[in-house]
């Protein structure tokens, strides 16, 4: 190695590769990997924002088991995955099929459908808070057609489902683009062969399109389930910092934020909840990928 460097026309400084990688490694080490290790360690201490804390073993986790708020958070985050993921796997695929053909003006529609992805989640949250308001647009429309006003943002369950709808609304365009790329690789001959065999549109969708984009559906399921379990902003904005009526709409990450920040923040306990978030996230990924492998065999 050294002899070859000597023979080079101009010698490369031996330290330069590390110089190149240094900023990235430093930032990643200090702000991602160290906090990760520190989260794991803190989860077994009673550390607070201003108090260093000491080792308490599994006390935080034992407390979790008896913490109603933790179970509410876990329920809501899990429910979020169960409801949002199927919608985000199927709807963007249908949307991609709709915008796939190059008919006049289609690039405008593709871009327009992507707009919610570009907007900040805070903007999106506030737009829907106003739309779903007791006196907002959705309710005026509902009243006009004679359904009457619905308390989307005051009922515990309606609030949660409204937040889910907003998550789906914001995610549609993103996954649509992913599906569009996948659909471009589906051989057209398959569709033609199916039409020749007399298969209708729905049948062709199920027997040709779905199998062809199956691996993309798995990818979307993995990405969206991880994102859904970590949901924070939509629910925070729509239900408020305390998580709706009696905190019943709190999600796990909201609980982490509420417990662990501020001057009296219980860093140790919040870290224990964070660890649960982390473990479930990894488990969800593995579950989706395993389901994929089983399907294949």
């Amino acid at each position, binding site marked *: 190695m050294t002899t070859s460097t000597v023979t080079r026309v101009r010698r490369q400084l031996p330290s330069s590769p590390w110089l190149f990688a240094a900023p990235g490694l430093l930032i990643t080490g200090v702000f991602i990997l160290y906090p990760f290790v520190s989260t794991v360690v803190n989860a077994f201490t009673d550390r607070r924002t201003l108090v260093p804390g000491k080792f308490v073993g599994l006390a935080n986790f034992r407390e979790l088991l008896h913490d109603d708020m933790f179970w509410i958070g876990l329920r809501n985050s899990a429910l979020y995955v169960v409801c949002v993921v199927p919608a985000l796997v199927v709807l963007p695929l249908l949307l991609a099929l709709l915008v796939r053909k190059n008919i006049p003006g289609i690039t405008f529609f593709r871009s327009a459908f992507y707009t919610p992805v570009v907007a900040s989640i805070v903007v999106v949250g*506030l737009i829907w808070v106003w*739309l779903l308001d007791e006196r907002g647009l959705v309710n*005026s429309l509902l009243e006009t057609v004679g359904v009457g006003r619905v308390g989307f943002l005051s009922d515990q369950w309606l609030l949660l489902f409204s937040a889910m709808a907003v998550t789906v609304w914001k995610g549609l365009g993103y996954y649509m683009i992913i599906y569009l790329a996948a659909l471009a690789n589906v051989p057209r001959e398959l569709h033609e062969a199916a039409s020749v065999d007399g298969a209708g549109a729905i049948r062709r969708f199920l027997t040709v399109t779905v199998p062809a984009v199956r691996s993309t559906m798995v990818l979307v399921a993995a990405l969206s389930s991880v994102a859904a379990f970590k949901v924070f902003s939509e629910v925070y904005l729509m239900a408020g910092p305390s998580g709706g009526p009696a905190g019943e709409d709190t999600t796990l990450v909201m609980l982490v934020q509420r417990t662990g920040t501020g001057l009296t923040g219980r860093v140790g306990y919040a870290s224990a909840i964070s660890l649960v978030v982390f473990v479930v996230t990894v488990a969800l990924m593995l579950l989706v990928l395993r389901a994929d492998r089983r399907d294949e065999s």
Partner: protein
Amino acid sequence: MSVLQKARPVSRTEAPREPRVTDEHGRRIRVGELVVRYVLLLAVLALTVGPFLWQLSTSLKGPTEDIFSSPPTFLPGHPTLHNYERVADTIPVWDYALNSLKVAAANVVTNCVGSALAGYALARLRYRGRRVATLVFILAMLVPVEGIIIAQFTTMRELGLNNTLIGVVLPGCVGAMNVLLMRNAFRNLPYEIEEAAYVDGANVWQRFLRVALPSVRGTVAVVAIFAFMGAWDDFLWPLIVLSDPSKFTLTIGLNYLHGTFANDERLVAAGTVIAVAPLIALFACLQRYFFRGVGEGAVKG
């Protein structure tokens, strides 16, 4: 060639049925199908873009105009910018926008520079420990930020940087995913061009700056756009790290506006329009890179 020749006669047999609009394969689309498609497209358009337009319309409605009417009035009777003046009187919205701009600009610069350098080191330079360095970035990409956010907050406190804009930028300033994106871009470059520069006596910095970097401009643009959007739109981290209202970014300021003046819908609407307009403008100009970023991020992420 032979495929094309075979395909021709088939399309010719269809030609007499008057093809009007064709799809990407040159196949004819029936009028009925076309009508259904446009109706569906317009319906989805109303659903996805409608809410933004309603927000814009609300922000332009004057204080005397009824914004709660049923049936709703979609267009403001007397459009006015009054609400934009009022939102600036209520919260320092332009200062917040400036803070957001600072954070986003810093995030763009650090991500482009940091991830290009690190990506080049991972892709091109030969040294011991390269695989470990790659693994560090892959592991970092897999760690969910929400799971370590409290520890990031305590780390920032230890560094004395909480409640500063630098503290907002730092944790994401060289994203692991961007590093890996750049690494892949550099790896896809043919070795030959750099070898030529090497023979001409260019050292590693010159090869990086003059040869490799200009060849991956597209990926740098993707990194820049997503860094800007990520920083401008971020909510959870600035919410945790910033406590002093004078340091707020636009998203945190909007949350504050919403929490404090929740009943004044026109005001909140004006605030959200201010926050979303720059990004929609950016998106309108640089769509190509937005879409490309989705593809690259999803495949590699």
